Structures are given as C-alpha cells and as structure tokens.
C-alpha cells in the first residue's frame, strides 16, 4: 500500500522493531494518519509507546515493514533528506531533552534557527509562546534552574513553535498540574484545528476524555490493537480551521 494522492501524513505497514538481537518490541504495526487527526497512544509501561514514537519522529529505523511520511518512503530515503522531513515534525520528548546550556528562550527558538528563520522572525513568536506557557519571566533561565513542570512547558513550546505538520508528544502532561495539562491540551487542539496531526502518548485516562474527537491507539506488548481496522483505514477527516 502506498500513500494516495490526498497525502497521508504517516502510513505504517506491518512495521516491526527490535533492538539488536532482542525480541521485537513492536510487531506488525499498521496505521494511517491523515492531516488534522488527533490520536492518543496508550498502553502499559513497556508496551512499545516510546519505540513507536521514535519511529514517528525519525529517531529510529524499523527492522521491517514500510513507513511513508509526507508521501515519501522514510526507510529508503537518503539520510541527507531526513532533516527536511524532521523540520515538519514537532516532538515533545518524555525526558524533555532541552539543551542544557541554552536558556528557555534559546531552547524554544532552536527549531526556528535550525530551519534558517531570520532572527527578527524568531524573537516575537518565541516570547509569545513562552508567555503563553507561563514562562515569560523565565526566558533567560537555563533548564537546570527550571522545575520539572517548567522544563516540560519549555519542551512543549519548542515542539509547537515551528507550526509542525505532525506533533508527537510523549507524556507531555506528566509533570504539570491539571490546569496546565488542560491548557497544553488546548494548544495541541488549536494546532490540530489548523491541520496539524497530533499524536499524544499518555497514561492519563482523564486526558483522553478531554478531546472527544480523538482516536485511541492502544499498544499491547508491541502490537497495535485495531480490531475494526479503523486505524489502518481511517475515514477521511475535514482539515483546516474549524
């Protein structure tokens, strides 16, 4: 199966992943993500959520199967072209992965700088984003001086600052209070309404109910639960601003 003319954002076909010579941590994973979809990825610890996200944000190549992203084969694609694909993604890492010697401001600005944005087009959006996540007064703070929740908010701000086409978040609300969790979810929804496909891995069952239109991807021991085939062959969605 190959991407159709309307352009799925992501298509996984019978993807398997094993690290080294160990057992497969993901087996026969197949699904399709269209622009504007909102997914929650759930599963017990060790079910393979982080491994699946790693494949989604191109930090890992699968051991078998096929992955198409933005209409191109992400497995056979030469590695020189991967950066352009990665710039269309936003990633919230579970461990935040902030650059330790950069301030909150510079961490959030990093994706824009990497993609070559002019400095005059960076300052205002980054300042606005940090203000919105409640860190206006911590712009110059280094990650080591921020609390876990503040680091997480910086990580989220960095992930969304470039208006990604696909936002992948690994437990993005794990370290923030419930109010901030809802607030961050609203940010993801706002981006989603503008056409960004969102995949959020979470343990938080309450969070799932906050986005009624979302689809649930449930992983169990490396296998994706999809009894109706709705994940592999999802119905088309309306995209664009609501």
């Amino acid at each position: 199966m190959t991407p159709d003319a309307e352009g799925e954002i992501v298509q996984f076909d019978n993807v398997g992943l094993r690290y080294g010579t160990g057992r497969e941590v993901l087996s026969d994973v197949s699904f399709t993500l269209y622009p504007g979809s909102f997914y929650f990825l759930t599963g017990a610890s060790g079910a393979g959520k982080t491994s699946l996200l790693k494949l989604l944000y191109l930090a890992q190549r699968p051991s078998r199967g096929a992955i198409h992203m933005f209409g191109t084969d992400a497995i056979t694609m030469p590695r020189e072209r991967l950066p352009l694909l990665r710039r269309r993604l936003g990633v919230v890492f579970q461990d935040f992965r902030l650059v330790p010697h950069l301030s909150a401001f510079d961490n959030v600005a990093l994706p824009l700088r990497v993609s070559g944005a002019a400095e005059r087009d960076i300052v205002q959006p980054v300042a606005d984003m940090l203000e919105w996540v409640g860190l206006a007064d911590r712009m110059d703070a280094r990650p080591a001086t921020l609390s876990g929740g503040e680091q997480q908010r910086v990580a989220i701000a960095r992930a969304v600052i470039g208006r990604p086409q696909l936002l992948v978040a690994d437990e993005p609300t794990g370290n923030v209070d419930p109010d901030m969790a809802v607030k961050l979810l609203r940010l993801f929804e706002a981006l989603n309404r503008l056409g960004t496909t969102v995949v959020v891995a979470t343990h938080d069952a309450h969070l799932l109910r906050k986005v009624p239109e979302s689809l649930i991807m449930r992983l169990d021991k490396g296998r994706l639960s999809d009894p109706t085939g709705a994940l592999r062959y999802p119905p088309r969605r309306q995209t664009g601003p609501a």
Partner: protein
Amino acid sequence: MNDAPPIPQAASRLPRRSAEIVPQARMSGPIPWVIAIMVALMVVAAAGGLALRNTGKAAARELSGGITVQIVEARPAERDRQARAALALLQRAQGVTEPRIVPQAELDALVEPWLGEAVDEQAQGGGQGDSLGVPVPALIDARLAGSLAPARLAALQEQLRRTAPSARVDDQAIWLRPVFGAAQSLQWLAVALIVLLSGATGAAVLLAARTALGNNRETIEIVHLLGGTDAQIAAIFQRSIAFDAIGGGVVGFGAAFVVIALLGRSFAQLQAGIVTGSALGWMDWALLALVPAVAAVVATITARWTVMRALRRML
C-alpha cells in the same frame, strides 16, 4: 496570561543575539596552545630552511666561477716571480676575468687565526708571507666565465704550469660543496618537520573534535531530531576550531618571530660572510606568515571532516 494559544506568526522586532548551540569556549582548553606551539615550531623550522636557502644562494653567487691559483713555493723570490707570471698569463687568457694577486694584508688576515699576529711582523722583517719560517703560498683570485668543467680547469692548470710550475688551480666552490650538500639536507629536514608538524596539528584537532563531539553528543542528537543538518552541526565545530587555530596561530607566529629575531641577532654578531647572506627578506616573511594561515585551514578542514564523518554514523 492569555488563554488563546499563540499560534506563531511571522513577526518583527529587534534581533536578539542567538546563543551557540554547542558551548563555545574561545581560546580555552589545550587546542589553541597546541596549535600555537606547532605553528611556532613550523615557523622556526621554515625560517631555518629559508635562511639556509638564502645562505646557499648567496655563497653560490659569490663563489660561482671563482678560482684560486696557489703558488706553493717555499722560496719567496721565486714565489713572487711565479705569481707575477701566472697573473700575466691569466690576464691574457680568454674567459678569465678579474685576476688579482691577493694582497699580503689579506693573506695575513687569513692565516692569523692559526699563526697569530707574528705573521705580520715576520713578513715585514723577513720574506713576504713567511711566518716564523713557515712559507705561505701566494694566492691569485680570478673568475672564469661560463661553466667550471673539470677539463677546463685541467687545461688552465696545464697552461699555468708552463710559466709557474708551482701553480695549483682550485675551484672555490668545490670546498663548499659538502657544506652546500649539508645545507640542502637541512632544508629538506625543515620541510619534513613542517609536514610532520602539520600532521601532528591535524591529529590534535581530530582528537579535539572527537572529544567535543563526545561531550556534546546529547545536544547534537537533539539538533538532529529538530531538523539540523550535518553541515549545520559541522559548521559550529569548524567555526570554533578555526577561531582557536587563528588565535593559536597568531600567538605561535609571535613567539616564533621573537625567537627568529633573537637568533638573527646572534648570527649577525658572528660577522661571518656566509652567515650575513642568510638574512630573511620580505618574501621570506610573507611565506612564514602563510604558516599560521595554512595551519588554520588544515585545522578547520580536519575538524569539518572529523565531525561530518562522525555524524554520518548517526541517523
């Protein structure tokens, strides 16, 4: 705090200075100093090589075509007669220019280091050039136009023997040929040293770049995952190394300049004719100034190559 999410739009404001993605500690750590030492050694070696080349050129210019006719005769009167006869012959001979009998004062100066000032007094009191009863040959300097082939020298010797049986013709350059050979070997040694030191500089930079990569691996991975290209990441490291190499190069060149100036002063005090020709000219200094520039280029290319090679192993 505004509840509407700030979906980024293009905006304008005064630019804010961007921080370096990888920490840049300019002119810190061992690398600038390693490069400074390497550059200093390379500049001194290159200066030595150039000085030797200049010495060789000056000596060759001075001695090229020069011959010395010795009249090795113990009897002063006969020696004078043969010297005058040889001079007359040389003045008539084709292709021989500037023949002159070396004056007694010069001869005295030549042998003075071995025989002392008594030569002078003896010469004034007794036979010319006979110091304490030691006969000193009469010398005639001359220049030959064209090449100094052994056959030509032999023919001249033969001609001279007929009028001055005690005459012996020497090619002036022949005595210095081993010196020239040794000087040339030293020049090659200087070249070899420069090549080796360039290699050592490259190796030091390679190790430094690898260490820097290892220390910043986490940051590099993040930048990669955010869409950073190998070239962008390599540029950060190569810029940092280039800065260190330029700084180290300037320091090294400065140190070498002081050493060369001091050595030059010491050699100048020797007042030996052959050494005075070794002075470095403007072109030589221009060549020496290229050494830190080349070292900076070598360091930058090595850093880029090392980083690009390491990054290619990452996804």
